[in-house]
C-alpha cells in the first residue's frame, strides 16, 4: 500500500490469515482492501499482490509471526534506559507498556523518569529523543499475544495488528454510499454566511487534535466557518433506534466537544 507520509514509499505487508478472514474482507489476488494501521499511523488502500498457501509451521516453543510490516519512516525515536547501554530505536507511534501509567503509551508520549515494563520487572527511561533521517522500519504481529519483548532490555512492546485493521472500506458516493451522499447534501445546504473550510465532499477533512479523548485526533465530516469567524463542525453518522448517535459516533462527538469544538450530529440512516 502507498505510504501516505512518504510519497515514494510503498508499505509491504505479509500476512498469515485464515480463509474465513480472507472471505470476510474479500481478499484475493488483485483485490484492494482497506487497512487502518493505527499504531503506525498508516491508513489506506492496499493492493493484494499474491495469495499463497500457508507454509508448514514448525513444531516447538515460541509464537508464530502472523504479520510483518516494513516501510520507510522519518519519525524515529531513541529511548535510553537506565543501566542499558544500547538505546531502543522505535517509531514515534510504537507502543510500550508504561508501568508508571499502567497503559500502552506511544514512544512519542513517553517521558524521562517513567518506568517501562520488561520481562524481568521494570526499566526507567533516561531520555527520549527524536532521531534525524529516514530509515526502513519493521513491525510484527505475533500469534496469540498482542505484545512481545523488544531490545536487549526486553521491554514489553505492543505489536502491530493489521488483522484488526482490514476492512472493505467506506462506500464512496459513486458506490451509493449514504454517508457521503448526506455529507454532500449538507454542503449544498450551508447558509449564505457559512463557508466550508474542510470536508463536505469537496475538500479533505482536517485533523483536529483531541488530546485526552478516546482518540488523539478526529476529522469532522464538515468544518464550517460562520460569518462571525467562529467554527462549527458537523459529523454525519449512524444512529440508534431512538435517533441518538451510535457509540462510536458519540465518542467522536464527545472528543471534539471536549476539545472545545461546537459540533452537530446529522444521522444518515
Amino acid at each position: 500500500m502507498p505510504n501516505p507520509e512518504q510519497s515514494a514509499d510503498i508499505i509491504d505487508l505479509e500476512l498469515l490469515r485464515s480463509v474465513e478472514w480472507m472471505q470476510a474482507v474479500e481478499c484475493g489476488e488483485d483485490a484492494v482492501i482497506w487497512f487502518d494501521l493505527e499504531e503506525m499511523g498508516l491508513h489506506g488502500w492496499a493492493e493484494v499482490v499474491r495469495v499463497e498457501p500457508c507454509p508448514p509451521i514448525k513444531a516447538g516453543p515460541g509464537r508464530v509471526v502472523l504479520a510483518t510490516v516494513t516501510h520507510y519512516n522519518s519519525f524515529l525515536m531513541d529511548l535510553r534506559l537506565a543501566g542499558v547501554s544500547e538505546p531502543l530505536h522505535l517509531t514515534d507511534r510504537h507502543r510500550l507498556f508504561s508501568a508508571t501509567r499502567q497503559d500502552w503509551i506511544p514512544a512519542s508520549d513517553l517521558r524521562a523518569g517513567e518506568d517501562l515494563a520488561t520481562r524481568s520487572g521494570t526499566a526507567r527511561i533516561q531520555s527520549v529523543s527524536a532521531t534525524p533521517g529516514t530509515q526502513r522500519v519493521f513491525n510484527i504481529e505475533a500469534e496469540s499475544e498482542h505484545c512481545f519483548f523488544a531490545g536487549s532490555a526486553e521491554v514489553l512492546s505492543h505489536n502491530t495488528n493489521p488483522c484488526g485493521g482490514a476492512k472493505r472500506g467506506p462506500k464512496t458516493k459513486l458506490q451509493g454510499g449514504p454517508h457521503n451522499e448526506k455529507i454532500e447534501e449538507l454542503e449544498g445546504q450551508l447558509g449564505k454566511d457559512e463557508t466550508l473550510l474542510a470536508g463536505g465532499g469537496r475538500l479533505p477533512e482536517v485533523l483536529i487534535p483531541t488530546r485526552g479523548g478516546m482518540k488523539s485526533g478526529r476529522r469532522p465530516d464538515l468544518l464550517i466557518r460562520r460569518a462571525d469567524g467562529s467554527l462549527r463542525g458537523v459529523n454525519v453518522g449512524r444512529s440508534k433506534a431512538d435517533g441518538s448517535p451510535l457509540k462510536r459516533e458519540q465518542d467522536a462527538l464527545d472528543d471534539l466537544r471536549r476539545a472545545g469544538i461546537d459540533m452537530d450530529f446529522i444521522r444518515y440512516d
Partner: protein
Amino acid sequence: MHKLLVQFYATPHELADFLRELLSLDLTLVTMELSPFLIQLASSKADLEVSRLQKASQVMVFHEPPVTSCENWNQFLDANRDGLFLWMGRLDQQVLSQSWLSAQSTSEQVIKRWRKVANILKRRTSAGVWIASLLNKDAGFYKQFRFTEGALKLFDEGCRIAPPAGNNLVFLRNPSPDC
C-alpha cells in the same frame, strides 16, 4: 477519491513568499475574501504582498484560469473542481492560527501535480508539533502538523500557537512535563 492535505504554521510573510513562488510557476492564483465574498485574480507578485493579503483568508491555485462569476464560496467550489486550496492562518494579537493546503479529486493525476506544489511547502517546513489538552495536560506528538522557521521564532518569542479548531495547546518544541 484522491486527497492531499498539509496542515502547517507559517507567518503572513512566509505565506506570501510561498504564494509568490507559485505565481512564478505559471499557476493561476485567486485570492478570496469571505464576508462579503470577493474574488481577485493575483496577476503579479505585487498582488501577493502581505499588505494586500491581509483581507483575504484563502487562496485557490489552478493550472487553468478558473470560473470567477460566482456569488459565494460554495458556488465557486462547485464551478472549479480540482483546485488547490490554501486556508491562510492569521497572526492576530500574538496568536498564530493554523494554515492548511488541500486538494481533493477523483483524478490521481491532478493530485500528483498538486503534490509537487505541496513539496515546495514541505521543503519550507519541519514536521511535528506537540499538542496538549487544556483540560488534563495530556500531551502528544503530531507529526502531521508542520511549521516554518518564522512560526518557530514567533513561538520562541511567546506567541500562542492555535490548533486548527478547539482549545488544545500547541507547542513547536517539546514542552516540559510541568508546563
